[in-house]
């Protein structure tokens, strides 16, 4: 455990130090402007002269204003403690049912993600089964599945939302559809690999027992694909979350981490953007970890752990 934690702590500490340092040049211009307005002497004087100067030079010339770069209201780059404070305030200090709570928005996003993930991975598995069993499907579907992932989802997300909302589907479902669109692909790829993982020898063996296709599938291909399935589910669930966020951006329903992310940017509230960003990443990490736990459990019970 210690062997695991210590390096992570060191790397995180290094990142934090770098982050604080980066805040200085990032926010120095605004800090100087404010300070100057309040009568402090900064060099060089005048916002206009500073406008095109390198922020590093400015930072070097005005060490007195460094600390101002870590406490701004709308900084270009918020300091770590600002993000943490905001995260804490928006999760712990408000009721989880309030719309000011990240827990509330996280839950909205999570529910769409889970629905989309269920649809996407279910479809992915079905498609993989089809591909493994039908040569025609294998040859026709696979190249298009790859092409489908080169389409910028952000471009068609609004169309999907508009079309679905015109047939009365709003809120959860359109987001889930987009989320499913992103998660099906890794599952297809992984499952096809997994279902094809039994060796020719394994397949011949069940053939000598005159097993049917269905028996071969349930008793051989499916269990053999379990490790591949979990590996791709982990990628799939992360993609799923990205899909939900993308689905939230144009949807205007207003609830969910994705919308909060963007609404922060409409009003220049960088700290809020960053806290929503981290909330999303934490959610993603949790989802992946949960799948990882399930993987450990199932594979252990299967004797593959």
């Amino acid at each position: 455990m210690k062997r695991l934690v210590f390096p992570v702590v060191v790397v995180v500490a290094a990142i934090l130090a770098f982050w604080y340092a980066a805040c200085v040049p990032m926010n120095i211009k605004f800090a100087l402007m404010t300070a100057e307005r309040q009568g402090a002497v900064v060099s060089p004087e005048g916002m206009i002269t500073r406008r095109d100067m390198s922020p590093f030079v400015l930072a070097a010339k005005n060490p007195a204003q460094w600390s101002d770069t870590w406490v701004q209201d709308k900084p270009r780059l918020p300091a770590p403690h600002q993000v943490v404070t905001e995260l804490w305030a928006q999760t712990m200090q408000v009721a989880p049912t309030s719309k000011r709570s990240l827990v509330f928005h996280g839950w909205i996003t999570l529910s769409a993600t889970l629905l989309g993930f269920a649809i996407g991975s279910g479809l992915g598995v079905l498609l993989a089964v089809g591909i493994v069993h039908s040569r025609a499907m294998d040859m026709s579907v696979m190249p298009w599945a790859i092409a489908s992932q080169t389409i910028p989802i952000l471009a068609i997300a609004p169309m999907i939302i508009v079309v679905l909302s015109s047939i009365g589907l709003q809120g959860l479902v359109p987001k889930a559809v987009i989320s499913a669109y992103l998660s099906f692909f890794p599952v297809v790829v992984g499952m096809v690999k997994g279902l094809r993982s039994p060796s020719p020898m394994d397949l011949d063996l069940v053939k000598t027992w005159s097993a049917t296709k269905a028996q071969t599938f349930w008793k051989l291909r499916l269990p053999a694909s379990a490790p591949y399935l979990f590996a791709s589910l982990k990628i799939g669930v992360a993609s799923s979350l990205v899909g939900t966020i993308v689905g939230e951006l144009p949807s205007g329903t207003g609830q969910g981490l994705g919308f909060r992310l963007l609404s922060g940017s409409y009003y220049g509230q960088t700290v809020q953007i960053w806290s929503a960003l981290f909330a999303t990443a934490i959610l993603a990490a949790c989802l992946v970890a949960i799948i990882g736990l399930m993987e450990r459990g199932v594979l252990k019970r299967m004797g593959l752990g």
Partner: protein
Amino acid sequence: MTQVPVIEAKHLDLTFQTNDGPVQALRDVTLEISKGDFVSFIGPSGCGKTTFLRCIAALEEPTGGQLTVNGMSPEAARKARAYGYVFQAAGLYPWRTIAGNIKLPLEIMGFSKTEQVERVEKVLELVDLSGFGKKFPWQLSGGMQQRASIARALAFDADILLMDEPFGALDEIVRDHLNEELLKLWARTEKTIGFVTHSIPEAVYLSTKIVVMSPRPGRITDVIESPLPKERPLDIRDTPEFLEIAHRVREGLRAGHAYD
């Protein structure tokens, strides 16, 4: 040994169509195997031993000649569950216990639950693995795994046991031991066994009939009926009769062998 022909191949040909053109794997193979025979196939790599075994098990379709098993087509014989097939690697499913692995063909063939349990018990005993049913394959040594895989092939009581280099991956001592066990088992059950090996002593020690094959296109160059008694202690391998047969096999092999 009774003289009922179980497997009968007449002028069997098999040509694979590959990207580099046709590969003739078997040419004009004619062979008769009687009930209760223990037949070893020996020959250099690529000579068609595996292919011939696969033809018998209806895993490969000959392109010429006739092949009957128990008087019917291999396909039909397979449907009638005539074969137990053992591959070089044990090929046990890692996600099933030993008992679960042995049960697998029984599940597929639709045996009742109680019968499954009974049969698993029986064959585990037969291969000396009672008590290991609950273990997973990777908790067992290579030799034990191979025995489990033999047990699996025995579980549904097929008349014909086809074994493709079943002991190739094991070390010599374990192999000796399994050879002895296999002979005992064969004596007890009176099954017909087709056995592929690369080892001359193994072939001579086990078989009632040794089929020597030559490579590309695979032909049978010699069929040696063993004069050794059915009862064979390991020491028999130091007897002159044994050495003589071994010598004959080696000569047959060397004749057909082009290095590389």
